[in-house]
């Protein structure tokens, strides 16, 4: 979005549709009611990521800040603090491979390199077909079944490199585990 740094008048066309605005207003208001007049930003962000395909578009965040009557810079601080939230576009499915110690010793480097090869992308990148974004993650809390990864909200444990094609295919075709 090109902005004139001197004027920035209010009638600047914004890339938000009326439908977006309506959805956001409702989302914030519902959240406010659910939390007895306060707001849970984390819940709002999760809802937004689901709605906007795993990322938080800038104009959407700007509108949420305005609706929530909070500072855009502070909302930005909140969003960028949590590595699970992203302001840059991500694929349809986000793969989070645990890179913490227990998973590392039980084989996460092999899992990661296998995924790199299968998907043709590195950590932080999205496949050209827009299906998968590969990410490293800190501990997912299920070290008992290490090495582990998460795709969207599903966790996978006791992984070997051989399991990966099947898991990816299942996700691709929209099925669960």
């Amino acid at each position, binding site marked *: 979005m090109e902005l004139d*740094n001197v*004027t*920035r008048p209010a009638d*600047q066309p914004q890339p938000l549709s009326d439908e977006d605005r309506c959805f956001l207003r409702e989302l914030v208001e519902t959240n406010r009611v659910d939390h007895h007049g306060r707001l849970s930003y984390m819940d709002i962000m999760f809802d937004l990521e689901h709605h906007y395909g795993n990322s938080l578009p800038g104009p959407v965040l700007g509108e949420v800040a305005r609706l929530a009557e909070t*500072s*855009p*810079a502070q*909302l*930005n601080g909140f969003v*960028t603090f949590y590595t699970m939230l992203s302001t840059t576009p991500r694929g349809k499915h986000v793969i989070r491979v645990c890179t913490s110690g227990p998973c590392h010793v039980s084989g996460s480097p092999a899992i990661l390199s296998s995924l790199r090869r299968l998907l043709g992308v590195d950590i932080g990148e999205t496949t050209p077909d827009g299906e998968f974004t590969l990410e490293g993650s800190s501990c997912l809390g299920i070290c008992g079944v290490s090495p582990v990864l998460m795709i969207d909200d599903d966790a996978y444990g006791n992984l070997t490199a051989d399991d990966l094609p099947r898991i990816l295919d299942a996700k691709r075709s929209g099925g669960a585990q």
Partner: protein
Amino acid sequence: METRMLNVKINGRDYQVPEGTTILKAAREYAKIEVPTLCYLEGISEEGACAICVVEVKGARNLQRACLAKVGEGMEVWTNTSRVREARKLNIELLLANHPKDCFTCEKNQICDLRELAAELGVREVKFPRTRTEWLPFDDTSLSLVRDPNKCVLCRRCVNVCAKVQSVYAIDIAGRGSNSTVSTFLDEGLGNVECVNCGQCLLVCPTGAITERSEIPDVWKALGNPDKIVVVETAPAVRVAIGEEFGMPDGTQATGKMAAALRSLGFDKVFDTDFSADLTIMEEGFELIGRIKNGGTLPLITSCSPGWIKFAETFFPKVLDHVSSCKSPQQMFGTVTKTYWAEKMGIDPRKIVVVSIMPCTAKKFEKERPEMKTAFHHLQEKLGLKDEEAFNDVDYVLTTREAAQMIREAGIEFASLPDEDFDKPLGESTGAAVIFGATGGVMEAALRTAYEVITKKSLAKLDFEDVRGLEGIKSADVDIDGMTLKVAVANGLGNARVLMDQVQKGESPYHFIEIMCCPGGCLGGGGQPISHNPDIKKRRAEAIYREDAGKPIRKSHENPEVQEIYKDFLGEPNSEKAHHLLHTDYCDRSCK
């Protein structure tokens, strides 16, 4: 309720300090022991982010941050053990590991807290390698300020000043851990967010991470061009602060030396923004009188401070009709110079370069506003100018610091210069104009004129003490021949917000409000010399009121040159011509 006094031992001596006191305050105020700090800014930024103020507390496992830890009964504090000294040094080294080593060329090198602390604490080597793999990009989106995040030590002073003092919240910490930076919404840059360009963040930054966008090279270039007539105007608050840059005592009135130094730099005319401050009072004073008489929108709010204007446009766009349509003195000066003065002297306005010296960084933004090309529009038809030949009313804005830098570069011995006067006619001013530099000054100047114009009587006492002083919000009832004029003055945008919330709700009891963006008014502006004296604003204000008291004329409407410009050029205050040249309008920046 009486505060309990606690017995504390600091460095082996006994002190009694009130409960709730921090170790830092106990050491500094009660024991007179200096504890070094970097991120601490009393009452504004008390985060414990830098860990330079660590002290040893007997019985505590870890070193304590003196700025946060409160004293307890029987506490034994040591501020100068080898463990403490080593920890402080180590923390500085950690900060320096990723810090650019370009102190030679850094603008802030003479006033850098980080460099001073490293020297004070005896840091002689940095044991840690650089961990950041690449340099972070500059934020040069703003017309007023430039941020270099590589020099940032994440002390959060700027974040807290922006939020707590100015209530703008344009910046915050983004990211986390070692990847944290101070940033704007989505890294859009200061020029693309709510930032009002006040530069208070620059004043508190302990390193060179925030500086003004320098226009020194442009001004040198203009001065070296024989085809240009380069005219300089100086704001009221500059004269009481510029001396600090040359080692003169705080609160020195350096008006005469400043005029002499600017003349030595090669400016063709050394004029004074105070002239157009008097002009502003005429226009704004008559606007106020008009609104009161004709039942116009009240309260009327002053419009001299461009940071405040952008704040109003961003946060209070619904009540912009309360803001005076008068341009700021800087912009009035530019217009008048390129129209009235050019005509009077028979000079082609395209040859004139107007440079203004301001205590302000927001003025750099203001001069670029598209509506600030009045002289061009006024003359376009007459001179047959094409649209692409448009010129600004004010060409360059230098902060007080930049002006001082140019004087140093030219090798001028500022402190030993003989006093000189401003040039005529645009250098003539009154005491009413000088006090524009302090919070309450515009109000006082306007009252002096409004009273005499309304009552047609001479004012017995010119000093309106109620609107003077550094409190955030001041108010007064002024009796004008039986009519009570309710006025209020706010300095610092956090205070302005309080008054503006009232205005927005329709609950404001006032007729006239003065708002200045920076704490203390222009004398505390973001373009002023950076000072470590906590009383600096008081010293500068005293100098301003001394300057006012020493002026032969102290009421704007008695300025003979102002009277002449109305007689020869503008007609009456608020005339159609005056409206065309000296007034402006505002835009909604709320980005709905």
